[in-house]
């Protein structure tokens, strides 16, 4: 080393010091930018979940009238309970708790306190157990949406009466019920166990959850075997030439096609040509499968490529056939990657709205589907329907439904992470 180069590497020289400072500064900048980006992402996430929870938490409880009441045999015939006058029974249950009772002035108001569906809830209870007629039973009946809003404090009592959805007299009557200890606000299981309804106080997600589950099942059963088969063929058996290149490019393009286009395809092909029914999860699942298929093929090919060639050579070296190598060694080792990709694809399909709207899965259906061939909604389309509904109660229910959907998505992603860690191998 000559003297001049030695001098250049002298740590004390001002040039070296300046250079070092510059290097440290740029490293510090990069770090700060990174932390800043992550902080912004977290803040956005916090804002999203925070706003959802702050509007949605009200929907996880529902105001109920909890009373002990006698099932009057004069209104309900024990031999033919389904024809009983449950409307009158529901009215009586309320009017007996209110000073003044059901005079001509109050009857309509009192009828309105309980949900319009309360009479049917009563009927279902009695029909299921006719021995209750004449007995005194504890009943828990949902109150109508506007009273629910009032009880949750979302209806401002200071608003002038003519601008308010409840009159002073109505509020007074309800307050009597609250003072009497007849009003409770238990957890709203109906959100998960009821199907959709026009009345927000009894509307639930059961139909949407089952519809989504059926659609995902159909989507999985179609796209998983077909996707893996296609990926194995392309990766292991197909000759590498122009045609396989073209196929590869097209699969990558398909993964980027907007989902609404797949919806139109499903509408035209499955419903238009094949004459399949509208709004059913089976068709929804097939449409989602079109969308998930490229994702699964790409993930599977990547997972197969990641299997070290030494394992293939080892198997070939002892005389395994190509098919034995693929199914005995490559596929088991690629499985965690394949499963992760599949679950991510499924999670995507679960949140997909546009294609389901196009094949009519945004219909108003008040019963949960019992087969994949019954009309149903799915979670995202249910959110879409509720977000569109004018009733005040649907505002918080929309947020609650989004939270339910997010919970399912987080659960699926957690499953993907769990599977990946469990089956991850080291070599």
């Amino acid at each position, binding site marked *: 080393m000559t003297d001049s180069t030695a001098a250049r590497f002298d740590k004390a020289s001002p040039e070296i010091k300046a250079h070092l400072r510059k290097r440290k500064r740029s490293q510090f900048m990069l770090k700060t930018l990174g932390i800043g980006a992550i902080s912004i992402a977290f803040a956005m996430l916090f804002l999203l979940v925070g706003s959802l929870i702050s509007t949605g938490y009200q929907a996880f409880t529902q105001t109920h009238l909890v009373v002990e009441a006698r099932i009057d045999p004069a209104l309900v015939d024990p031999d033919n309970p389904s024809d009983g006058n449950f409307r009158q029974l529901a009215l009586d249950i309320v009017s007996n708790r209110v000073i003044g009772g059901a005079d001509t002035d109050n009857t309509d108001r009192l009828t309105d306190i309980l949900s319009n569906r309360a009479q049917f809830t009563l009927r279902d209870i009695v029909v299921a157990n006719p021995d209750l007629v004449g007995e005194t039973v504890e009943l828990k009946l949902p109150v109508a949406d506007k009273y629910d809003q009032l009880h949750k404090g979302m209806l401002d009592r200071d608003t002038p009466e003519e601008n308010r959805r409840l009159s002073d007299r109505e509020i007074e009557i309800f307050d009597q019920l609250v003072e009497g200890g007849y009003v409770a606000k238990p957890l709203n299981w109906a959100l998960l166990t009821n199907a959709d309804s026009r009345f927000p106080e009894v509307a639930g997600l059961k139909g949407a959850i089952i519809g989504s589950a059926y659609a995902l099942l159909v989507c999985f059963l179609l796209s998983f075997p077909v996707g893996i088969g296609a990926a194995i063929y392309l990766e292991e058996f197909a000759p590498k030439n122009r045609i396989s290149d073209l196929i590869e490019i097209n699969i990558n393009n398909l993964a980027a096609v907007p989902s609404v286009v797949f919806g139109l395809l499903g509408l035209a092909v499955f419903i238009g040509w094949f004459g399949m029914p509208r709004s059913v999860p089976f068709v929804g699942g097939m449409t989602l499968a079109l969308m998930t298929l490229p994702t699964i093929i790409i993930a599977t090919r990547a997972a197969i490529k990641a299997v070290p060639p030494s394992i293939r050579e080892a198997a070939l070296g*002892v005389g395994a056939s190509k098919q034995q190598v693929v199914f005995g060694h490559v596929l088991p080792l690629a499985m965690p990657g394949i499963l992760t990709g599949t679950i991510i694809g499924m999670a995507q399909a679960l949140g997909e709205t546009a294609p389901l709207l196009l094949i009519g899965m945004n219909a108003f259906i008040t019963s949960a589907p019992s087969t994949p061939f019954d009309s149903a909604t799915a979670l995202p389309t249910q959110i879409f329907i509720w977000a569109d509904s004018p009733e005040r109660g649907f505002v918080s229910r929309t947020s609650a439904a989004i939270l339910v959907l997010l919970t399912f998505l987080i659960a699926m992603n957690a499953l993907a992470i769990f599977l990946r860690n469990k089956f991850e191998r080291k070599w």
Partner: protein
Amino acid sequence: MTQNATKFSARKVQVFYGDTQAIKDVDVDIEDKTVTAFIGPSGCGKSTFLRCLNRMNDTIDNCRVEGDILLDGEDIYDKRIDPVQLRAKVGMVFQKPNPFPKSIYENVAYGPKIHGMTRSKAELDEVVEKALRRAALWTEVKDRLDTPGTGLSGGQQQRLCIARAVATSPEVLLMDEPCSALDPIATAQVEELIDELRTRYSVVIVTHSMQQAARVSQNTAFFHLGELVEFGETDSIFTNPQDHRTESYITGRIG
């Protein structure tokens, strides 16, 4: 040359990757119950030639082999020869130990299983034990046959791979730099093992280490730029090379 029967006989072998020629006109006879070493600088084609002997090059798309390679007088590139059967007869051990991510037992039993060589579990157990004994691994692993093969040390893994290769009762063992990923102690163990294997099999070993070639082999082939420069008894190659390129290589001037 020793007087053993010829196992492999290669004539005018040419190998092409696409348009580039990797091997030119190689003629070589590999004897039974002998260790033959292939030496030469990197990229000289010794591994490529080794992989012709069990048709591993078939798996490379644009690879083309010309000329004749006879195993016991039969052309292994004949249409009637099934490469899958051939590879049971000509076992291979690779550069990096590559046990399957399965148990030790499964690793060794895999070959006999896929070739349907055993009829019962007891028979398979016997084959596995014999193979592990031949690979000098039995005493070390007999109590933990169901633990993963990937959990063994590097040297043990390589001997497991040798056990896996001998489990199908091959006639020839091809070894592609089997010690390059091992430490000196494990290397010594594997070399010792190669010397024992010679009593049953014809062994062909590719190595970068000339000392190793001198230690384990009886015959040595020196490859340079895709050509077989010199082939003969190891002693004479190292003490009295005929070609100046061989001499340059073993004295360290090229390579």
